[in-house]
């Protein structure tokens, strides 16, 4: 039995197809679990899928590189989906233009809060300088976060992990948290998700509301822009 399994496993584990199927299956399971929980954001399909795939990799002794060779086909679509966010953005141009000054103020406040509190908390709790610097750009979309982290002396791979952790957290507690402050406006919710939780939090909002999707797209794009310009400046001051 074990030998037969081994015969089957060895050729399969080398093809990209296996890990593509595992990733898709894990996400489908995640969605089913969320549906079974009445659509609760606490049952995040992204988190569930990451846990299932991670456990599978650890259980089978598969390296992340082998896994990524298969999963990169899914990863590649992050580019086109980022471009696709232009659609809800363009359809709500009039709304966005009317609130430009609000958007600018909220963006600046939220972005600075994220960078300063992230670095500050690591520093206060005795974390290392490289972890603090990796924390600084973690709220923005992963490719920008990694590039900025590299530029200021952080660890890009760690920043990517922090970006994902923060995004999952923002997606899970975002609605609940803002409801507590009596904010039920999709414009505020969308922008906050995009600024604080980038793609993962935006994905959660975008699935629920079109105006939210437009403001989340704007939050991701503008915060990426601001962080790429601002964080290297702030890092130069902190020496």
């Amino acid at each position, binding site marked *: 039995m074990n030998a037969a399994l081994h015969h089957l496993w060895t050729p399969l584990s080398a093809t990209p197809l296996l890990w593509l199927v595992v990733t898709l299956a894990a996400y489908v399971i995640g969605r089913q679990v969320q549906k079974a929980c009445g659509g609760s954001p606490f049952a995040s399909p992204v988190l569930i899928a990451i846990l299932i795939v991670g456990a599978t990799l650890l259980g089978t002794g598969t390296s992340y590189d082998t896994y990524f060779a298969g999963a990169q086909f899914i990863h590649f679509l992050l580019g086109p989906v980022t471009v696709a966010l232009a659609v809800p953005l363009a359809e709500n141009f009039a709304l966005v233009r009317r609130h430009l000054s609000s958007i600018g103020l909220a963006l600046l406040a939220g972005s600075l809060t994220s960078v300063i509190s992230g670095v500050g908390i690591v520093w206060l709790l005795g974390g290392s300088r490289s972890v603090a610097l990796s924390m600084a750009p973690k709220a923005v979309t992963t490719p920008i976060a990694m590039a900025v982290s590299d530029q200021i002396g952080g660890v890009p791979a760690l920043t990517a992990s922090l970006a994902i952790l923060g995004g999952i957290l923002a997606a899970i507690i975002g609605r609940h948290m*803002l409801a507590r402050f009596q904010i039920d406006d999709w414009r505020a919710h969308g922008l906050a998700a995009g600024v604080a939780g980038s793609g993962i939090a935006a994905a959660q909002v975008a699935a629920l509301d079109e105006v939210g999707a437009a403001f989340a797209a704007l939050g991701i794009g503008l915060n990426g822009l601001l962080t790429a310009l601002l964080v290297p400046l702030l890092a130069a001051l902190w020496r």
Partner: protein
Amino acid sequence: MTSAMLILVGCQLLGELLRATFQLPIPGPVIGMFLLALALGLRARRTGNDRTPAPLKPAAEGLIANMGLLFVPAGVGIIAEAGVIRKEWLPILVAVAGSTILSLIVTALVMHWTLRPTHAHDTDRQGRAS
């Protein structure tokens, strides 16, 4: 469907080209998003209709509806970083949670406060869009 994919990937390529040419600090897909939004905005002004044409709209909506899936491969990468995270777990976890929550609340509150004066004025538009 294919023409929609061509538009999306084409804008991404254009974004990558602009990034490489002008050494911009922003990734290609984000530049591509602003380019496509600009193009759609100009088209809407010309035709007087701000709805997105048929093949692009369902393709974009389909991708956005399943956006979470696309983060799974990168997210699994956390296990490769488990070493550092285990060593400095307290500052890392508190900082990620604290700064994400603070930023979420500050962004939403500033947006909410500054929007309030024009709130009544906007409800018609909001109702139509949602």
